[in-house]
Protein backbone atom coordinates (compact mmCIF):
# COMPACT_ATOMS: atom_id res chain seq x y z
CA UNK A 1 0.00 0.00 0.00
CA UNK A 2 2.42 2.66 -1.24
CA UNK A 3 -0.39 5.23 -1.11
CA UNK A 4 -1.13 4.76 2.58
CA UNK A 5 2.57 5.02 3.37
CA UNK A 6 2.81 8.29 1.52
CA UNK A 7 -0.20 9.62 3.39
CA UNK A 8 1.31 8.49 6.68
CA UNK A 9 4.67 10.04 5.87
CA UNK A 10 2.92 13.37 5.39
CA UNK A 11 0.68 13.09 8.45
CA UNK A 12 1.58 14.73 11.74
CA UNK A 13 1.87 11.32 13.42
CA UNK A 14 4.92 10.41 11.40
CA UNK A 15 6.65 13.73 11.97
CA UNK A 16 5.78 14.59 15.57
CA UNK A 17 8.76 15.10 17.89
CA UNK A 18 8.87 15.83 21.63
CA UNK A 19 9.64 19.40 20.60
CA UNK A 20 6.36 19.66 18.74
CA UNK A 21 4.44 18.38 21.75
CA UNK A 22 6.15 20.84 24.11
CA UNK A 23 5.40 23.78 21.82
CA UNK A 24 1.78 22.68 21.38
CA UNK A 25 1.41 22.60 25.16
CA UNK A 26 2.93 26.08 25.41
CA UNK A 27 0.48 27.32 22.79
CA UNK A 28 -2.44 25.82 24.70
CA UNK A 29 -1.10 27.41 27.89
CA UNK A 30 -1.02 30.87 26.28
CA UNK A 31 -4.62 30.47 25.13
CA UNK A 32 -5.58 29.28 28.59
CA UNK A 33 -3.95 32.29 30.26
CA UNK A 34 -5.70 34.63 27.85
CA UNK A 35 -9.16 33.16 28.28
CA UNK A 36 -9.02 32.18 31.96
CA UNK A 37 -7.18 35.22 33.38
CA UNK A 38 -7.68 37.71 30.52
CA UNK A 39 -3.90 38.25 30.37
CA UNK A 40 -3.43 40.35 27.20
CA UNK A 41 -6.03 38.26 25.36
CA UNK A 42 -5.75 40.34 22.18
CA UNK A 43 -2.16 39.14 21.87
CA UNK A 44 -1.99 35.82 23.69
CA UNK A 45 -4.90 34.30 21.78
CA UNK A 46 -3.44 35.01 18.32
CA UNK A 47 0.11 34.15 19.44
CA UNK A 48 -1.04 31.02 21.24
CA UNK A 49 -3.06 29.77 18.28
CA UNK A 50 -0.19 30.72 16.01
CA UNK A 51 2.08 28.50 18.09
CA UNK A 52 -0.36 25.63 17.50
CA UNK A 53 -0.48 26.25 13.75
CA UNK A 54 3.29 26.54 13.53
CA UNK A 55 3.91 23.36 15.47
CA UNK A 56 1.56 20.94 13.81
CA UNK A 57 4.19 18.47 12.60
CA UNK A 58 4.49 18.49 8.81
CA UNK A 59 7.16 17.67 6.26
CA UNK A 60 9.04 20.75 5.08
CA UNK A 61 10.55 21.51 1.68
CA UNK A 62 8.63 18.92 -0.29
CA UNK A 63 6.71 21.59 -2.15
CA UNK A 64 3.83 21.48 0.31
CA UNK A 65 4.71 25.04 1.35
CA UNK A 66 3.21 24.95 4.82
CA UNK A 67 6.04 26.14 7.06
CA UNK A 68 6.36 29.81 7.94
CA UNK A 69 10.04 29.54 6.99
CA UNK A 70 9.27 27.96 3.59
CA UNK A 71 9.30 30.47 0.76
CA UNK A 72 5.97 30.59 -1.03
CA UNK A 73 3.84 29.46 1.91
CA UNK A 74 0.94 31.69 2.95
CA UNK A 75 2.36 32.03 6.46
CA UNK A 76 5.68 33.06 4.98
CA UNK A 77 4.03 35.85 2.99
CA UNK A 78 2.19 37.13 6.05
CA UNK A 79 5.38 36.75 8.11
CA UNK A 80 7.15 39.28 5.88
CA UNK A 81 5.36 42.02 7.80
CA UNK A 82 7.25 40.87 10.90
CA UNK A 83 10.51 40.10 9.13
CA UNK A 84 10.65 43.46 7.34
CA UNK A 85 9.51 45.31 10.46
CA UNK A 86 6.35 46.64 8.79
CA UNK A 87 3.71 45.58 11.32
CA UNK A 88 5.15 47.29 14.41
CA UNK A 89 5.08 50.82 12.98
CA UNK A 90 1.51 50.29 11.82
CA UNK A 91 0.59 49.15 15.31
CA UNK A 92 2.26 52.25 16.73
CA UNK A 93 0.14 54.28 14.31
CA UNK A 94 -2.99 52.78 15.81
CA UNK A 95 -1.68 53.19 19.35
CA UNK A 96 -0.97 56.84 18.72
CA UNK A 97 -4.52 57.24 17.44
CA UNK A 98 -5.93 55.77 20.65
CA UNK A 99 -3.53 57.19 23.25
CA UNK A 100 -4.23 60.38 25.17
CA UNK A 101 -1.00 62.13 26.16
CA UNK A 102 -2.72 64.59 28.52
CA UNK A 103 -1.32 63.21 31.78
CA UNK A 104 2.14 63.37 30.30
CA UNK A 105 1.71 66.96 29.13
CA UNK A 106 0.20 68.09 32.41
CA UNK A 107 2.97 66.72 34.65
CA UNK A 108 6.04 66.55 32.41
CA UNK A 109 8.51 66.03 35.26
CA UNK A 110 7.11 62.50 35.65
CA UNK A 111 8.49 61.76 32.18
CA UNK A 112 11.93 61.43 33.78
CA UNK A 113 10.75 58.27 35.51
CA UNK A 114 9.99 56.83 32.10
CA UNK A 115 13.58 57.60 31.15
CA UNK A 116 15.07 56.13 34.30
CA UNK A 117 13.32 52.79 33.90
CA UNK A 118 15.08 52.22 30.58
CA UNK A 119 18.20 51.28 32.58
CA UNK A 120 16.79 47.76 32.30
CA UNK A 121 17.38 47.82 28.57
CA UNK A 122 21.04 48.76 28.75
CA UNK A 123 22.07 46.53 31.64
CA UNK A 124 20.34 43.60 29.93
CA UNK A 125 22.23 44.52 26.77
CA UNK A 126 25.50 44.24 28.69
CA UNK A 127 24.34 41.05 30.39
CA UNK A 128 23.55 39.47 27.05
CA UNK A 129 27.04 40.31 25.81
CA UNK A 130 28.53 38.81 28.96
CA UNK A 131 26.57 35.67 28.12
CA UNK A 132 28.25 35.52 24.75
CA UNK A 133 25.59 36.99 22.47
CA UNK A 134 26.83 39.24 19.69
CA UNK A 135 26.37 42.98 20.12
CA UNK A 136 23.50 43.15 17.64
CA UNK A 137 21.68 40.23 19.22
CA UNK A 138 22.33 41.66 22.68
CA UNK A 139 20.75 44.95 21.66
CA UNK A 140 17.59 43.19 20.51
CA UNK A 141 17.45 41.15 23.70
CA UNK A 142 17.93 44.25 25.83
CA UNK A 143 14.81 45.87 24.40
CA UNK A 144 12.72 43.22 26.14
CA UNK A 145 13.31 45.48 29.15
CA UNK A 146 11.36 48.14 27.28
CA UNK A 147 8.24 46.13 28.03
CA UNK A 148 6.92 46.96 24.62
CA UNK A 149 5.94 44.19 22.21
CA UNK A 150 6.03 46.07 18.91
CA UNK A 151 9.33 47.80 19.72
CA UNK A 152 10.92 44.47 20.64
CA UNK A 153 9.70 42.85 17.41
CA UNK A 154 10.80 45.80 15.29
CA UNK A 155 14.32 45.97 16.65
CA UNK A 156 14.87 42.22 16.59
CA UNK A 157 13.68 42.19 12.97
CA UNK A 158 16.53 44.64 12.35
CA UNK A 159 19.29 43.34 14.63
CA UNK A 160 18.63 39.65 15.23
CA UNK A 161 16.97 38.46 12.05
CA UNK A 162 19.32 35.69 10.98
CA UNK A 163 21.11 37.94 8.50
CA UNK A 164 24.73 39.19 8.61
CA UNK A 165 25.61 36.18 10.76
CA UNK A 166 23.24 36.93 13.63
CA UNK A 167 20.75 34.30 14.75
CA UNK A 168 16.99 34.81 14.09
CA UNK A 169 15.81 35.58 17.63
CA UNK A 170 12.58 37.39 16.67
CA UNK A 171 10.40 34.57 17.96
CA UNK A 172 11.98 34.08 21.40
CA UNK A 173 12.35 37.84 21.98
CA UNK A 174 8.75 38.57 21.03
CA UNK A 175 7.38 35.70 23.12
CA UNK A 176 9.53 36.70 26.11
CA UNK A 177 8.45 40.35 25.85
CA UNK A 178 4.75 39.55 25.71
CA UNK A 179 4.95 36.86 28.41
CA UNK A 180 6.54 39.19 30.95
CA UNK A 181 4.23 42.04 30.01
CA UNK A 182 1.39 39.71 30.91
CA UNK A 183 3.12 38.79 34.17
CA UNK A 184 3.82 42.39 35.28
CA UNK A 185 1.26 42.07 38.11
CA UNK A 186 3.28 39.15 39.44
CA UNK A 187 6.78 40.54 38.90
CA UNK A 188 6.51 44.13 40.10
CA UNK A 189 4.74 44.19 43.52
CA UNK A 190 7.44 42.41 45.54
CA UNK A 191 10.13 44.74 44.16
CA UNK A 192 7.96 47.78 44.88
CA UNK A 193 7.45 46.77 48.51
CA UNK A 194 11.11 45.90 48.90
CA UNK A 195 12.35 49.30 47.71
CA UNK A 196 9.79 51.63 49.34
CA UNK A 197 8.96 52.46 52.93
CA UNK A 198 5.35 52.61 54.11
CA UNK A 199 5.87 56.37 54.55
CA UNK A 200 6.80 56.71 50.89
CA UNK A 201 3.95 54.55 49.64
CA UNK A 202 1.35 56.84 51.22
CA UNK A 203 2.68 60.06 49.65
CA UNK A 204 -0.18 61.92 47.97
CA UNK A 205 0.35 63.85 44.76
CA UNK A 206 -1.50 66.88 43.37
CA UNK A 207 -3.99 66.08 40.62
CA UNK A 208 -2.55 67.07 37.23
CA UNK A 209 -3.89 70.26 35.57
CA UNK A 210 -6.20 70.08 32.60
CA UNK A 211 -4.58 70.27 29.17
CA UNK A 212 -5.72 72.46 26.26
CA UNK A 213 -6.54 71.10 22.79
CA UNK A 214 -3.70 73.18 21.38
CA UNK A 215 -1.16 71.56 23.68
CA UNK A 216 -2.39 68.16 22.58
CA UNK A 217 -2.01 69.10 18.91
CA UNK A 218 1.50 70.45 19.47
CA UNK A 219 2.72 67.43 21.43
CA UNK A 220 2.97 64.93 18.57
CA UNK A 221 4.64 67.52 16.32
CA UNK A 222 7.29 68.64 18.81
CA UNK A 223 7.63 65.06 20.01
CA UNK A 224 8.47 63.94 16.48
CA UNK A 225 10.94 66.72 15.78
CA UNK A 226 12.76 66.36 19.09
CA UNK A 227 13.07 62.58 19.21
CA UNK A 228 13.67 62.50 15.45
CA UNK A 229 16.64 64.84 15.67
CA UNK A 230 18.12 63.05 18.69
CA UNK A 231 17.50 59.47 17.60
CA UNK A 232 16.57 59.20 13.92
CA UNK A 233 16.67 55.42 14.31
CA UNK A 234 13.46 55.67 16.32
CA UNK A 235 11.59 57.36 13.43
CA UNK A 236 9.80 54.30 12.04
CA UNK A 237 8.23 53.71 15.45
CA UNK A 238 7.87 57.21 16.93
CA UNK A 239 7.10 58.82 13.58
CA UNK A 240 4.06 56.59 13.26
CA UNK A 241 3.14 56.89 16.94
CA UNK A 242 3.06 60.68 16.76
CA UNK A 243 1.41 60.60 13.32
CA UNK A 244 -1.45 58.52 14.71
CA UNK A 245 -1.70 60.83 17.67
CA UNK A 246 -1.93 63.92 15.44
CA UNK A 247 -4.69 62.22 13.42
CA UNK A 248 -6.51 61.93 16.75
CA UNK A 249 -5.76 65.35 18.22
CA UNK A 250 -6.01 67.47 15.06
CA UNK A 251 -9.80 67.00 15.38
CA UNK A 252 -10.11 67.39 11.59
CA UNK A 253 -9.14 63.82 10.66
CA UNK A 254 -11.46 61.91 12.96
CA UNK A 255 -12.41 59.27 10.40
CA UNK A 256 -8.76 58.44 9.71
CA UNK A 257 -8.01 58.17 13.43
CA UNK A 258 -11.01 55.90 13.90
CA UNK A 259 -9.88 53.55 11.16
CA UNK A 260 -6.29 53.60 12.40
CA UNK A 261 -7.25 52.64 15.93
CA UNK A 262 -9.87 50.10 14.93
CA UNK A 263 -9.92 48.03 11.74
CA UNK A 264 -6.33 48.87 10.75
CA UNK A 265 -4.67 47.99 14.07
CA UNK A 266 -6.93 44.96 14.47
CA UNK A 267 -5.96 43.53 11.10
CA UNK A 268 -2.27 44.08 11.80
CA UNK A 269 -2.58 42.64 15.31
CA UNK A 270 -4.23 39.48 13.98
CA UNK A 271 -1.53 38.96 11.35
CA UNK A 272 1.34 39.88 13.65
CA UNK A 273 0.09 37.70 16.48
CA UNK A 274 -0.53 34.57 14.47
CA UNK A 275 2.72 34.80 12.51
CA UNK A 276 4.88 35.59 15.54
CA UNK A 277 3.27 32.58 17.17
CA UNK A 278 3.85 30.36 14.16
CA UNK A 279 7.45 31.52 13.94
CA UNK A 280 8.16 29.53 17.13
CA UNK A 281 8.52 26.29 15.21
CA UNK A 282 10.05 23.82 17.65
CA UNK A 283 13.12 23.30 15.47
CA UNK A 284 13.88 27.03 15.62
CA UNK A 285 12.54 27.92 19.04
CA UNK A 286 13.64 25.22 21.46
CA UNK A 287 17.28 26.21 21.85
CA UNK A 288 19.52 27.13 24.81
CA UNK A 289 19.50 30.71 23.49
CA UNK A 290 15.76 30.93 24.00
CA UNK A 291 16.15 29.91 27.63
CA UNK A 292 18.89 32.50 28.17
CA UNK A 293 16.66 35.11 26.55
CA UNK A 294 13.85 34.31 28.96
CA UNK A 295 16.23 34.60 31.93
CA UNK A 296 17.60 37.91 30.68
CA UNK A 297 14.07 39.15 30.00
CA UNK A 298 13.01 38.48 33.58
CA UNK A 299 16.06 40.33 34.87
CA UNK A 300 15.46 43.31 32.61
CA UNK A 301 11.91 43.71 33.94
CA UNK A 302 13.17 43.60 37.52
CA UNK A 303 15.98 46.07 36.88
CA UNK A 304 13.66 48.44 35.01
CA UNK A 305 11.18 48.45 37.87
CA UNK A 306 13.90 49.06 40.43
CA UNK A 307 15.35 51.80 38.24
CA UNK A 308 12.08 53.68 38.05
CA UNK A 309 11.40 53.50 41.77
CA UNK A 310 14.93 54.42 42.83
CA UNK A 311 15.00 57.44 40.52
CA UNK A 312 11.72 58.66 42.02
CA UNK A 313 13.33 58.49 45.46
CA UNK A 314 16.35 60.40 44.19
CA UNK A 315 14.10 63.09 42.73
CA UNK A 316 12.33 63.42 46.08
CA UNK A 317 15.61 64.47 47.66
CA UNK A 318 15.50 67.62 45.53
CA UNK A 319 11.76 68.24 45.73
CA UNK A 320 10.32 70.36 48.50
CA UNK A 321 7.57 69.05 50.79
CA UNK A 322 4.13 68.88 49.16
CA UNK A 323 5.45 68.36 45.64
CA UNK A 324 7.15 65.05 46.37
CA UNK A 325 6.60 62.02 44.13
CA UNK A 326 5.17 58.74 45.39
CA UNK A 327 8.01 56.37 44.44
CA UNK A 328 5.54 53.62 43.57
CA UNK A 329 4.74 55.70 40.49
CA UNK A 330 8.29 55.09 39.30
CA UNK A 331 7.50 51.44 38.70
CA UNK A 332 5.13 52.47 35.91
CA UNK A 333 8.14 53.74 33.95
CA UNK A 334 8.74 50.30 32.48
CA UNK A 335 5.62 50.88 30.34
CA UNK A 336 3.77 47.62 29.75
CA UNK A 337 0.94 50.10 29.32
CA UNK A 338 -1.27 50.20 31.28
CA UNK A 339 -0.74 47.13 33.45
CA UNK A 340 2.14 48.54 35.44
CA UNK A 341 0.11 51.71 36.02
CA UNK A 342 -2.67 49.55 37.40
CA UNK A 343 -0.24 47.70 39.63
CA UNK A 344 0.88 51.07 40.99
CA UNK A 345 -2.75 52.05 41.56
CA UNK A 346 -3.34 48.76 43.36
CA UNK A 347 -0.25 48.94 45.57
CA UNK A 348 -1.07 52.56 46.39
CA UNK A 349 -4.55 51.59 47.51
CA UNK A 350 -3.04 48.88 49.71
CA UNK A 351 -0.95 51.47 51.53
CA UNK A 352 -3.74 54.06 51.68
CA UNK A 353 -7.20 52.97 50.46
CA UNK A 354 -8.07 56.56 49.48
CA UNK A 355 -4.90 57.40 47.52
CA UNK A 356 -5.49 56.88 43.81
CA UNK A 357 -2.20 56.93 41.85
CA UNK A 358 -3.54 55.71 38.51
CA UNK A 359 -3.58 59.04 36.69
CA UNK A 360 -0.11 59.93 38.00
CA UNK A 361 1.23 56.54 36.95
CA UNK A 362 0.03 57.01 33.37
CA UNK A 363 2.63 59.73 32.70
CA UNK A 364 5.76 57.64 33.34
CA UNK A 365 3.90 54.70 31.87
CA UNK A 366 3.46 56.35 28.47
CA UNK A 367 6.77 58.20 28.50
CA UNK A 368 8.32 54.80 29.10
CA UNK A 369 7.10 53.88 25.63
CA UNK A 370 8.82 56.89 24.11
CA UNK A 371 11.90 56.16 26.19
CA UNK A 372 12.28 52.60 25.00
CA UNK A 373 11.62 53.59 21.40
CA UNK A 374 14.40 56.16 21.64
CA UNK A 375 16.66 53.54 23.21
CA UNK A 376 15.81 51.23 20.33
CA UNK A 377 16.70 53.96 17.86
CA UNK A 378 20.08 54.55 19.49
CA UNK A 379 20.91 50.86 19.60
CA UNK A 380 19.95 50.53 15.95
CA UNK A 381 22.26 53.32 14.85
CA UNK A 382 25.13 51.90 16.88
CA UNK A 383 24.70 48.19 16.22
CA UNK A 384 23.37 47.59 12.73
Amino acid at each position, binding site marked *: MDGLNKFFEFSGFANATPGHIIMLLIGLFFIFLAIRYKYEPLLLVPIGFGILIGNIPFVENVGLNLGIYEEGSVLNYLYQGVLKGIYPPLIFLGIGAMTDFSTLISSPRLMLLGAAAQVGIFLTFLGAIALGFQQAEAGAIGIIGGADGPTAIFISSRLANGLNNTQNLIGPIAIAAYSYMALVPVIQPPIMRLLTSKAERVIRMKPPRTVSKTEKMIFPILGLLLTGFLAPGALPLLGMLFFGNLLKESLVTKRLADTARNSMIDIVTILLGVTVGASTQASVFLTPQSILIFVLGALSFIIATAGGITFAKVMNMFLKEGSKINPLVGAAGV*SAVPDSARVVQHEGLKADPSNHL*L*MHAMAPNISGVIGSAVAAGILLSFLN
Partner: protein
Amino acid sequence: MKFDLSALDADSLFIALIGYLIVFISLVLLYFIFDNLPRVLNLLKRMAASNEKLKENPPVSSKRNVPGEVNAAIATSLHLYFSEMHDEEFTKLTINKVSRNYSPWSSKIYSVMRSQMMNK
Protein backbone atom coordinates in the same frame (compact mmCIF):
# COMPACT_ATOMS: atom_id res chain seq x y z
CA MET B 1 -10.31 15.07 -25.95
CA LYS B 2 -12.27 11.85 -25.31
CA PHE B 3 -13.32 10.10 -22.11
CA ASP B 4 -10.72 7.32 -21.75
CA LEU B 5 -11.01 5.12 -18.65
CA SER B 6 -7.73 3.43 -19.48
CA ALA B 7 -6.14 6.71 -18.42
CA LEU B 8 -7.05 5.82 -14.84
CA ASP B 9 -3.78 4.41 -13.48
CA ALA B 10 -3.66 2.55 -10.17
CA ASP B 11 -1.94 5.52 -8.55
CA SER B 12 -4.86 7.86 -9.23
CA LEU B 13 -7.37 5.27 -8.01
CA PHE B 14 -5.34 4.84 -4.84
CA ILE B 15 -5.25 8.58 -4.22
CA ALA B 16 -9.02 8.86 -4.69
CA LEU B 17 -9.69 5.90 -2.41
CA ILE B 18 -7.29 6.89 0.36
CA GLY B 19 -8.30 10.53 0.10
CA TYR B 20 -11.96 9.72 0.59
CA LEU B 21 -11.01 7.36 3.41
CA ILE B 22 -9.06 10.04 5.29
CA VAL B 23 -11.86 12.58 4.91
CA PHE B 24 -14.09 10.03 6.60
CA ILE B 25 -11.54 9.23 9.31
CA SER B 26 -11.13 12.90 10.22
CA LEU B 27 -14.84 13.53 10.55
CA VAL B 28 -15.47 10.22 12.30
CA LEU B 29 -12.82 11.14 14.86
CA LEU B 30 -14.35 14.59 15.30
CA TYR B 31 -17.66 12.78 15.76
CA PHE B 32 -16.30 10.55 18.51
CA ILE B 33 -14.56 13.42 20.27
CA PHE B 34 -17.57 15.71 20.38
CA ASP B 35 -19.92 12.88 21.13
CA ASN B 36 -17.98 12.26 24.34
CA LEU B 37 -16.88 15.82 25.07
CA PRO B 38 -19.84 16.66 27.36
CA ARG B 39 -18.98 13.71 29.63
CA VAL B 40 -15.30 14.70 29.73
CA LEU B 41 -16.17 18.30 30.48
CA ASN B 42 -18.40 17.35 33.39
CA LEU B 43 -15.50 15.34 34.75
CA LEU B 44 -13.11 18.26 34.36
CA LYS B 45 -15.66 20.67 35.82
CA ARG B 46 -15.81 18.62 38.99
CA MET B 47 -11.99 18.66 39.17
CA ALA B 48 -11.89 22.35 38.26
CA ALA B 49 -14.49 23.11 40.92
CA SER B 50 -11.98 22.22 43.63
CA ASN B 51 -9.14 24.13 41.94
CA GLU B 52 -11.44 27.13 41.70
CA LYS B 53 -11.41 27.50 45.48
CA LEU B 54 -7.62 27.78 45.39
CA LYS B 55 -7.41 29.81 42.18
CA GLU B 56 -10.13 32.26 43.10
CA ASN B 57 -8.18 34.56 45.43
CA PRO B 58 -4.39 34.48 45.17
CA PRO B 59 -2.48 37.78 44.81
CA VAL B 60 -2.23 37.65 41.01
CA SER B 61 -5.82 36.86 40.30
CA SER B 62 -7.04 39.34 42.87
CA LYS B 63 -4.81 41.99 41.36
CA ARG B 64 -6.38 41.13 38.05
CA ASN B 65 -9.80 41.23 39.59
CA VAL B 66 -9.85 44.99 40.11
CA PRO B 67 -12.72 44.98 37.64
CA GLY B 68 -12.57 47.38 34.71
CA GLU B 69 -15.77 49.12 35.79
CA VAL B 70 -14.47 49.92 39.25
CA ASN B 71 -11.23 51.17 37.82
CA ALA B 72 -12.89 53.23 35.15
CA ALA B 73 -15.10 54.66 37.86
CA ILE B 74 -12.04 55.59 39.92
CA ALA B 75 -10.29 57.09 36.92
CA THR B 76 -13.49 58.93 36.09
CA SER B 77 -13.98 60.35 39.55
CA LEU B 78 -10.29 61.21 39.73
CA HIS B 79 -10.78 62.90 36.42
CA LEU B 80 -13.95 64.75 37.15
CA TYR B 81 -12.07 66.21 40.09
CA PHE B 82 -9.77 68.23 37.83
CA SER B 83 -11.58 68.15 34.52
CA GLU B 84 -13.35 71.24 33.25
CA MET B 85 -16.02 70.31 30.75
CA HIS B 86 -17.87 67.05 31.37
CA ASP B 87 -21.45 65.89 31.69
CA GLU B 88 -23.48 62.90 32.66
CA GLU B 89 -23.49 61.51 29.15
CA PHE B 90 -19.72 61.48 28.91
CA THR B 91 -19.43 59.63 32.18
CA LYS B 92 -21.87 57.01 31.01
CA LEU B 93 -19.97 56.72 27.76
CA THR B 94 -16.81 56.00 29.70
CA ILE B 95 -18.26 53.23 31.75
CA ASN B 96 -19.92 51.67 28.73
CA LYS B 97 -16.83 51.80 26.58
CA VAL B 98 -14.82 49.85 29.15
CA SER B 99 -15.50 46.63 27.31
CA ARG B 100 -14.20 47.86 23.94
CA ASN B 101 -10.73 48.39 25.42
CA TYR B 102 -7.58 47.50 23.53
CA SER B 103 -3.84 47.88 23.16
CA PRO B 104 -1.08 45.72 21.80
CA TRP B 105 0.59 46.36 25.13
CA SER B 106 -2.46 45.34 27.05
CA SER B 107 -6.12 44.92 26.44
CA LYS B 108 -6.94 47.17 29.35
CA ILE B 109 -5.40 50.46 28.27
CA TYR B 110 -8.46 51.60 26.38
CA SER B 111 -10.67 51.73 29.47
CA VAL B 112 -8.14 53.97 31.12
CA MET B 113 -7.73 56.07 28.00
CA ARG B 114 -11.44 56.51 27.47
CA SER B 115 -11.86 58.13 30.83
CA GLN B 116 -9.04 60.52 30.03
CA MET B 117 -10.32 61.31 26.57
CA MET B 118 -13.25 62.95 28.30
CA ASN B 119 -11.55 66.30 28.68
CA LYS B 120 -11.33 66.76 24.92
